[in-house]
């Protein structure tokens, strides 16, 4: 591994602030990268790293702070300016033109010309040389889409190199690559570093960070909470720094209560065995009983949402099996799942949850509407009654049930969505990040509601990145890592520390460090 160059950093961002709609997204954020290093930038969703990058590349304007790049004050007002200054970004969704050849993609926008016409010969030659220098043996005249994601990432890198980029930002580039492809990509990245360029590497895959990066910056809640050489932080410390401790918004049930809950839980509502589909879910096995709340823990991108979608019939299962109430079942569509009493509260409230133009009433009764219709006509009185009942029982704050749902706050929208599913009287509730992006008061409300549902006999599977909330509500935790269930922790063994441990090391056994942390907690 290279030791970073001493002297002035290539990039220095300090005291960066920015707010969206009155809410501070970044506060005094910092990032400092030197030439000739691979710098990891990590943090959970909403921690602010994408926002910071967008400010750097000119997609957003900061409200405060300074940026110095390559020895000069930098204030990019558009991605084009950032690119011209030498900053290249490679995104997770490959931003190449799929039908065009590799060579063309590398030179798109900067095509060399002869007598006014494009000089294909030169383009192909230089592209081939570039990829050869990466150690790749591929035909640059073939369309990009014929190649794997890994190769496409490298083509994107080649484009950055050929445009003399001084700094390359790689945003979640490895999410859909397998080990071999990742290693191939890394060899190219190391070449870039050795050439004296800087690489900012954004990822949540811990092993990769340790294999590739020289230094790391950790962000949380819009602030930079750690900057250090990679070697100075071990995995557990890294995970702890990332997840941190949020304010105690939720009242905990102590482990004795949890053990009692587990003891009186009912039969298995749903059971997944070696479930898998695509690259995101490789091998998931878990079960949920009625009267219990199971927490699904894991880092961003570990496959929790995808697992829930499989259990809801939203995506087809490719490997493994599902059984409901003990009977094997194939779910062909959400309609199927809903008919069997499964409910799924999505993570993406805006994109998959609310129908923004419709009223709160319409959104709330969306799924149960069928039961409120007589001969095709909606029974308005019944609908009103259900809506009023849930508005009251869930404490939804609004002006009127007829106002468009997009006028409500995030927390209240979430409650409406929760009500949508509760109105169908489900037996199994799949909750994907139910408390994400809502205010503290609403978080507490939702947690309480979930507990009450569990007590009344519902089977609940909830996924949350904020471990504090997960451990507060769940009776036991199932840990997922890169699409695979790696640990199951219940009762006294379930704690934030042990979960983080499982996420970091992937085993069910606790390291001595985690035990020590737990012991300390027991004393206070």
């Amino acid at each position, binding site marked *: 591994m290279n030791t970073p160059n001493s002297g002035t950093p290539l990039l220095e961002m300090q005291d960066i602030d920015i707010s969206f709609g009155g809410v501070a997204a970044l506060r005094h954020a910092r990032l400092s990268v030197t030439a000739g290093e691979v710098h990891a930038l990590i943090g959970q969703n909403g921690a602010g790293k994408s926002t910071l990058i967008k400010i750097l590349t000119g997609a957003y304007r900061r409200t405060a702070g300074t940026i110095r790049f390559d020895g000069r004050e930098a204030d990019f007002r558009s991605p084009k300016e950032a690119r011209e200054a030498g900053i290249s970004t490679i995104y997770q969704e490959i931003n190449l033109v799929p039908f065009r050849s590799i060579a063309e993609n590398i030179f798109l926008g900067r095509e060399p010309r002869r007598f006014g016409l494009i000089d294909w010969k030169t383009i192909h030659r230089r592209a081939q040389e570039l990829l050869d220098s990466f150690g790749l043996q591929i035909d640059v005249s073939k369309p990009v889409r014929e190649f794997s994601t890994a190769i496409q990432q490298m083509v994107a890198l080649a484009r950055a190199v050929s445009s003399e980029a001084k700094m390359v930002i790689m945003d979640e580039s490895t999410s859909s690559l397998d080990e071999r492809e990742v290693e191939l990509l890394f060899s190219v990245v190391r070449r870039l570093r050795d050439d004296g360029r800087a690489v900012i590497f954004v990822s949540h895959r811990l092993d990769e960070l340790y294999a590739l990066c020289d230094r790391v910056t950790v962000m949380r809640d819009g602030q930079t909470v750690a900057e250090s050489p990679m070697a100075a932080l071990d995995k557990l410390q890294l995970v702890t720094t990332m997840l941190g401790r949020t304010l105690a918004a939720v009242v905990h049930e102590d482990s004795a209560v949890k053990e009692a809950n587990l003891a009186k839980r009912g039969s298995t509502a749903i059971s997944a065995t070696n479930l898998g589909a695509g690259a995101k879910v490789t091998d998931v096995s878990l079960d949920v009983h009625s009267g219990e709340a199971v927490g699904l823990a894991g880092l961003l991108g570990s496959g929790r949402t995808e697992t829930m979608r499989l259990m809801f019939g939203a995506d087809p299962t490719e490997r493994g099996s599902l059984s409901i109430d003990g009977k094997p079942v194939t779910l062909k569509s959400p309609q199927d799942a809903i008919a069997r009493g499964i409910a799924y509260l999505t993570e993406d409230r805006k*994109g*998959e949850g609310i129908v923004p133009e419709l009223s709160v009433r319409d959104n709330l009764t969306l799924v149960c509407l069928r039961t409120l219709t007589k001969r095709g006509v909606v029974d308005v009185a019944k609908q009103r009654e259900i809506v009023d009942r849930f508005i009251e029982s869930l404490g939804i704050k609004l002006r009127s049930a007829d106002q468009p749902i997009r006028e409500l706050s995030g927390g209240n929208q979430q409650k409406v969505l929760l009500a949508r599913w509760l109105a169908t009287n489900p037996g199994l509730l799949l909750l994907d990040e139910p408390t994400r992006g809502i205010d503290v008061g609403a978080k507490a*409300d939702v947690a309480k509601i979930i507990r009450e549902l569990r007590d009344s006999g519902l089977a609940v599977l909830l996924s949350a990145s904020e471990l504090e909330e997960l451990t507060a509500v769940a009776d036991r935790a199932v840990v997922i890592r890169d699409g695979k269930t790696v640990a199951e922790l219940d009762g006294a063994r379930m704690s934030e520390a042990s979960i983080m441990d499982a996420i970091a090391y992937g085993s069910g056994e606790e390291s001595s460090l985690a035990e020590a942390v737990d012991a300390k907690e027991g004393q206070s």
Partner: protein
Amino acid sequence: MNQKTQPATAAPLVQAAQKKKYRITIQREIAVLVAMIVFNLLFTQHFWSLQTFNVNLTQVVTIVIVGIGMTLVVATGGIDLSVGASMAIAGSLAPMIFMNVAGPFGIALAFVLPVLAAALCGVFNGFLVTRLSVQPIVATLVLFIAGRGIAQVFTDGSLQAFDNPAFQWIALGRVAGVPAQVFLMLALVAVFAWIVRKTLFGQYLLVTGGNERAAYLSGIPTARVKMIAYTLCAGLAGLAGLISISVNSSSDANVIGLGSELDAIAAVAVGGTALTGGRAYIVGTLIGALIIQLLRYTLLAHGIPDAAALVVKAGIIIAAVYVQRRQR
């Protein structure tokens, strides 16, 4: 349970924001309409007469009926370019039936079969869109090209003139001095507006266009909803075709419904329904059609050639869509 609940507004939901916005949008269109009427009252001779009223309303009947169907399709996020072809098919088929099958049975059949034939076109469109995932513009392009040709082939492009008061009553008959077709139009507007607002299907329609992913995850049969929308649209167009031939006492496959897709889309857009889907203002489509018609009438009454009205219409469509986009 939570102690600190905000009591839900117990009083009947009066000025609900969504309804308010609906009213505001409609009010703008109504205001435009009223302004045009006032202008004409002041500056156009003989404007305020039953004859003028009838003439203008009858001109819009076919557009509005097609427009209702178009509104439904647009609400799902699609579009139907083949409505003119459906009109032509229905309009060509009808005379062949009632001129060969006598009596009331013939009349009835001459209504039912052509509309069914047109509806079949809608099923074809719906199939392409839902099963083969073809873009609506492309899918309905096929019948746009071939549909009229089919009608032309059946009639060999020749005019079928006829005189059948029973069949034509729908267009030429009057009730209390107002043509029957106007009542039919108003009835259809009322029925479909009610369907959109009060039925399960109406709700599903809006959600399919408003957020298809959410609709899918809520168990809504989006494919079936779209199929119904396209079928209804083509069926309504068929009905409009029947009215059209009744008005003209003749059926010419080359001409029936020519340009009607444009007129319908214009009425829908000007009437406030977003072309991106998720909303369906049936009454708005009526008002939109009236505005465009009144514009044409105003220009004509003041000596401006009809052709100029086309240019103005083009401008209005662009303006209406642009304003809608800004609203979002």
